[in-house]
């Protein structure tokens, strides 16, 4: 059999060339069919990105429109040497890391419960998803009222009447809590899809092989559903990094609790400083790109739908 292979090859070559002729036409058709979507994307996503890159290289403050001029990377120097920016960056990183880590643990627990539930499955799943279904701003307001001294139930019980949202560390914790409450169901939903990919036989085999429940979880379930876990983490990390609404409602960015999205908003929209604001949004764009790069290249996260056929 092995010596038959080289013989087959010269015969296969012309067939390959003929095939690529057809492939070319197919590719041309494919490009043509994609073109309208690409044009729309270029108009609504590509152009704003390029425009904000362009703006970030200019001194452009709407309060002083006459002083617009090209300043190269000056804006980047200004932003990257500003303590406000770095404070916002750290706040964002802390909120992202802490909330995603806790969400992963809670989400996994919820997913296991939803996966295992036999009675009232629909009710359990629906009720778990309620927080995710509530508009973030509405939920944030209810948290704000709850933490308000004298009237809020959380302020009176847990905080003992202290104004939690007006101190930096407690305020950040309150924001993290609101984030976790809100998006854990999303995490659970993604993880549950991953759990469904673990064949029952695999867990039975592990049980017979001598694995305890915890060993079955850590040595079989988690490795097998690793692609789903990474996708869930990637989605949530990118999402958490752009945190805005909870912060906007709960603290308004006071006491140095602004996230990078918050100070970008303050500079760009409130401050009307298009140059600095655009610089910040480009920096956020770069940070998000780095996170995605780390997940996909270093951890081998497969984007949904591109899962390699080889792994089972």
């Amino acid at each position, binding site marked *: 059999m092995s010596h038959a292979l080289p013989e087959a090859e010269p015969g296969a070559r012309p067939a390959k060339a003929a095939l690529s002729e057809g492939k070319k036409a197919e590719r041309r058709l494919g490009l043509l069919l994609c073109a309208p979507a690409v044009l729309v994307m270029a108009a609504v996503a590509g152009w704003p990105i390029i425009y904000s890159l362009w703006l970030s290289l200019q001194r452009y403050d709407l309060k002083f429109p006459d002083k617009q001029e090209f300043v190269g990377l000056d804006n980047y120097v200004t932003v990257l040497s500003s303590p406000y920016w770095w404070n916002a960056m750290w706040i964002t990183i802390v909120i992202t890391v802490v909330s995603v880590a806790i969400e992963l643990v809670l989400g996994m627990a919820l997913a296991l419960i939803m996966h295992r539930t036999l009675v009232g499955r629909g009710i359990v799943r629906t009720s778990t998803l309620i927080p995710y279904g509530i508009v973030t701003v509405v939920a944030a307001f209810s948290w704000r009222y709850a933490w308000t001294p004298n009237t809020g139930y959380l302020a009176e019980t847990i905080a003992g009447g202290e104004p939690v949202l007006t101190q930096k560390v407690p305020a950040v914790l309150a924001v993290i809590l609101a984030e976790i409450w809100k998006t854990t169901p999303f995490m659970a939903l993604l993880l549950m899809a991953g759990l469904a990919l673990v*064949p029952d036989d695999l867990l*039975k085999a592990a*049980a*017979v*092989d001598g*694995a*305890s429940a915890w060993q079955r979880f850590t040595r079989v379930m988690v*490795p097998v559903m690793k692609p789903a876990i990474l996708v869930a983490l990637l989605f949530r990390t990118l999402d958490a990094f752009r945190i805005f609404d909870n912060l906007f409602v709960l603290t308004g960015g006071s006491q140095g609790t602004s996230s990078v999205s918050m100070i970008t908003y303050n500079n760009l929209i409130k401050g009307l400083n298009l140059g600095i604001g655009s610089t910040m949004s480009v920096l956020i764009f770069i940070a998000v790109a780095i996170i995605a790069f780390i997940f996909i290249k270093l951890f081998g996260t497969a984007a949904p739908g591109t899962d390699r056929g*080889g792994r*089972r």
Partner: protein
Amino acid sequence: MAEIVLDKVSKQYPDGAVAVRDVDIEIADGEFIILVGPSGCGKSTTLNMIAGLEDITSGELRIGGERVNERAPKDRDIAMVFQSYALYPHMTVKENMAFPLRLAKVDNATVEKKVRDAAEILDLTQHLDRKPANLSGGQRQRVAMGRAIVRSPKAFLMDEPLSNLDAKLRVQMRTSVSRLQKQLGTTTVYVTHDQTEAMTLGDRVVVMRGGAVQQIGAPQHLYEHPANLFVAGFIGSPSMNFVPAGLEDAVLRSPLGDIPLTDRVRGLLAGGDVPREVIVGLRPEHFEDARLVDDAVRAHGVTFTSHVDVLESMGSDKYAYFSLSGEQATSAELAELAADAGSADVPGEGVSLVTRLSAVSTATEGEQAEIWFDADKVQLFDPKNGRNLTYSGN
């Protein structure tokens, strides 16, 4: 190694459905026993109960003399091979096979040695560093076997381990499973729905139907002395022919003609409560082309002439198919067998008959042929409860 005893073991689900009813099986140390039956007969449930993957509702399960009903699978010291192989996709072949040993906290040197030994036996040495996704079906199957044998467990449980292989490989693997079991001498319980596997592999075969054991015995015994219609129809390929007949005096009136009762048959029927309507069972190999039978032998049997529907030449034999006029034999057992074989809705009229003739037979498709069969080989069944009226026990 140990013997396994199922003592009146039953399984009832919370919704009231009974999957397994009062199963009594004593499996000797080192024995290779097969659980066989159509799908839904409770064979896999029985196996899962032995493994500890399903709870036992009532009855007792003893492995090596100890009651293990309440023990978790990991504390029963058994190994299982699944139909899907259930290999861990994120581990290499080596890690897969080492997994049970690692969980048992065996030291590295021993793990290494045991995995090497098992890989050698199963011819997997050059694949040790590959992932299951890169292996062929047969190789995966061997890895699954390897994972079972590295531990030297008390017993092997196999749940249709060869069903996912293609036909040719299945026959090959069948012999290697059999050889491996003899070599290791480990008690093995093997579940299959394939009667050929059951006949060829097992020391003893347990035929199950609807959660109950129908008959337990050596393959040859089940073939020659089926306890009832179900076992008779399930064991053997092509399966036994069933023809309805009326019992009058000492003669069976059937579509095949009048069959005289021989002394052996009469002796077995005597004393029993014999209904007037019976089902006659005849194995295909008990037929022969009448022209090839000499007169002395011919006198022991019955001859009939019929139209050959289909003739299949297998080289060593010829299979001739007939359809005779008259009513088909009907019973609950036969209906279930037909449903399992998927032949329940194959249109057909009258009594169909499969006969195995010598290769030298001159029977031709589409023409009349004179066929003889041995009247002493008939088995009679009660159509109401399927009992073999001519069952001679051991």
